[in-house]
């Protein structure tokens, strides 16, 4: 071990594909990183594992085509267990002065974890564009629907409609149908023409492209109605408005309805960036992601010395890219501290990531965020469900108070002020604000992150923090 590597104190936040590969690279260079993860088992969202207490289904059943990758990531992590300081069930809720504030769920205790170097691999959640009726019980995000299947081993309903756009739409529909749920329909806001136009770019990842084609073909072969170019109108409730009873959408000519008992909705993913924000990372608008994201160089260095960004938390690139970016960021961390690394490997990872960028652009072209969503969102549509803020209130705030920036909109309307702190409603509110002001999305800014990243019980916030192990 070199003198400098002995002094290194790396912490990785997130144990998805990026975090696991980052940890692996650090351990390979004889470091012992702290790995903090909100979940109880490593794997992240995409390779989420069911609780150890439940009957274990096979990787094939859980992850389909991704079983091999999931197995590999899990195996890599399991092999690391003895060589890392692993903190599962742990929420990083604040960062300040080279220390993370961590809430450990099961013991209801807080700890202070110091770091010298930090790899932020916080992943993503669904990007939500609400539709009237979306607050009815029975409406889930696509990611939520997938978590139900992978983690709890249950479906969100028996007769399910999936609505929105993005590759996850077809993947989740396929997984549900395979698991025995009746998938009534897949309603995609993207048009077939979008997909055709994007095909050349998507062929940069022929295997991934082929999987997408396969899901679509499989669903069609199994009698699932696939509609593209739709405009979701509303989720219909039952007579008591107590649960989902159907969906209404527009097919370009007329409004149509379908009966179902659950709806999965999503428009691809959005990055979890609050930790990077609290760490002081510089953000810039990323047109590809239609979001302000923490900037990083090709190796994953953020604008803050000692802070590295990897995986979907810094921009949605998918699980494969997350693995490469996690490893690349770890190599950058090592290099920055004088530890010799395999430069060719680092270069190869960067090449792969760069190449994937082209594919990612293709995906955006194939499954664009519906540009007319804000124009069609009715005034009574609840955008922020924590605070019950409607699209009409947001527009009113623009018209009457002249709000033209996200934090101003938040201050005046309460959008994003609830428990989710804008994680769920922020993207939609920004679309409404941009549309109402006529400003480009980039210019309306982003909600500034504030601690706690997720709600924390007061008596735990008050508790004297215990030092992290390894101190």
């Amino acid at each position, binding site marked *: 071990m070199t003198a400098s590597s002995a002094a290194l104190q790396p912490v990785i936040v997130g144990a998805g594909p990026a975090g696991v590969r980052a940890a692996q690279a650090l351990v390979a260079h004889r470091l012992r990183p702290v790995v903090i993860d909100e979940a109880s088992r490593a794997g992240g969202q995409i390779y989420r594992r069911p609780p150890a207490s439940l009957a274990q289904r096979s990787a094939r059943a859980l992850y389909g085509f991704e079983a091999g990758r999931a197995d590999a990531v899990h195996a890599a992590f399991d092999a690391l267990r003895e060589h890392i300081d692993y903190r599962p069930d742990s929420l990083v809720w604040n960062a300040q002065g080279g220390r993370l504030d961590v809430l450990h769920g099961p013991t209801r205790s807080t700890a202070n974890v110091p770091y010298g170097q930090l790899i932020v691999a916080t992943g993503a959640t669904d990007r939500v564009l609400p539709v009237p009726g979306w607050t009815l019980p029975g409406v889930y995000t696509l990611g939520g629907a997938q978590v139900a299947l992978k983690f709890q081993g249950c479906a969100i309903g028996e007769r399910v409609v999936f609505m929105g756009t993005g590759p996850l739409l077809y993947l989740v529909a396929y997984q549900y149908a395979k698991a025995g749920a009746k998938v009534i329909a897949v309603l995609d806001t993207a048009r077939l023409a979008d997909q055709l136009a994007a095909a050349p770019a998507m062929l940069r990842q022929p295997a991934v492209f082929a999987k997408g084609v396969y899901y679509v073909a499989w669903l069609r072969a199994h009698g699932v109605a696939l509609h593209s170019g739709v405009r979701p109108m509303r989720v219909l409730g039952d007579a008591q408005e107590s649960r989902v009873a159907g969906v209404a959408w527009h097919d370009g000519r007329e409004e149509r309805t379908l009966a179902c008992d659950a709806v999965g909705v999503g428009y691809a993913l959005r990055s979890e960036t609050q930790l990077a924000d609290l760490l002081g990372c510089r953000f810039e608008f990323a047109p590809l992601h239609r979001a302000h994201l923490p900037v990083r160089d090709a190796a994953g260095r953020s604008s803050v010395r000692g802070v590295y960004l990897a995986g979907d938390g810094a921009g949605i690139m998918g699980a494969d890219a997350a693995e490469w970016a996690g490893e690349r960021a770890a190599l950058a961390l090592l290099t920055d501290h004088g530890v010799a690394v395999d430069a060719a490997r680092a270069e190869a990872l960067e090449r792969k990531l760069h190449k994937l960028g082209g594919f990612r652009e293709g995906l955006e072209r194939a499954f664009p965020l519906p540009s007319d969503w804000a124009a069609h969102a009715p005034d009574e549509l609840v955008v922020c469900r924590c605070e019950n803020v409607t699209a009409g209130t947001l527009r009113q705030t623009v018209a009457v108070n002249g709000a033209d920036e996200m934090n101003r909109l938040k201050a*005046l309307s309460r959008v994003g*002020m609830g428990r989710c702190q804008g994680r769920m409603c922020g993207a939609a509110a920004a679309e409404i604000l941009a549309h109402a002001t006529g400003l480009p999305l980039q210019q309306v800014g982003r909600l500034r992150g504030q601690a706690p990243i997720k709600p924390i019980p007061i008596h735990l916030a008050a508790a*004297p923090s215990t030092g992290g192990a390894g101190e």
Partner: protein
Amino acid sequence: MTGRKTLRTDVAIVGGGIVGASAALALRQMGIGVVLLERDLCGSRSSGVNYGGVRRQGRPINQLPLAQRAHRIWGRLRETIGADGEYLRSGHFKIARSEADMASLERYRAQSRDFDLGLELISDARLRERCPWLGTRAIGGSLCAEDGQANPRLVSPAFALAAQRAGAQIFERHKVDEVAHDGQAFMLRSGNALEVHAPALLNCAGAWSGPIASEFGEAVPLRSSHPVMAVTEPVPHFMDWSLGVEGGGIYCRQVARGNLVLGGGRGIALDADRARADRDAIATLAAQAVELLPTLRHAHFIRTWSGTEGNLPDHQPVLGPSRTTPGLFHGFGFSGAGFQIGPAAGEVLAELVRDGRSSTPIESFSIERFFAEEEAPTITPTSP
């Protein structure tokens, strides 16, 4: 670059916080022309991110005339700014945690007797009966039933909007880069965008007022400070009063939605413009909150924040004419207690512009107090 706009007006105001904005409104109501320059957004700094206490109780006695004047403005807030700003005369209860605190509250009641605050001391059995939710550390307190709370996020920007509707020209995101006085009028320049000429200038730039005062030979020991604020998730409504603690430390109120808004302690500056809550301050605030209101034990903090306030060593504002430059009036340094008196300070500034004097006593807020050792200034401010 061409295209710089030049405006001539009666009064230029730097700062769109509650003081600058209410001065702009008051001036327009007097028919006086106003241009206001705000470096960011009106009411987005300490005026808009503070706790929201609208309280006279506990203020230094010399502030009470101003606070009483403000109390009347708050009483007609809706007519004044066209919004209720969630203002409630819910009562402000200052808690005593010892007999000494109780004695201090009694002394304050005696000292403030001339101002008719209607303070009511409550202790022992009556305390438990009136507020069963109070933790056992509280042994009593003093209630000012007519004090209350408001939502600063809404109130402060609304003053600016009202001023604008009344004809003030308001330029947000216009930082003042240069201030000068040619013996006749002030010139303010904001980048290449705007130049304002006016015979009168109001320095209401909050924590950023120091450089303007210095420009006119009035450097004062203004320091930035950063209060820590936190809010819980909504919990069932149990408390109407806004709470403070004798001797300071924590303050707390419950809004109509059920969230508890809490403040106390100091945050940290991120840069010249921004601040955030400090870890240890959050822990202290949380511990005090649970002690004060045990029912909060299982509630969650959902957000913390901070802001930037201008503080002076004696915690009193500078409010009044410049000692060096005719036509310049200061209104800054409210030291974390400017929200309630802000609207009155604005009216006072407008009176000073129009009449050269204020109908509310403000001598003790004179900038003179920082120059007591020096020679008398060249221009004596008009005194009432």
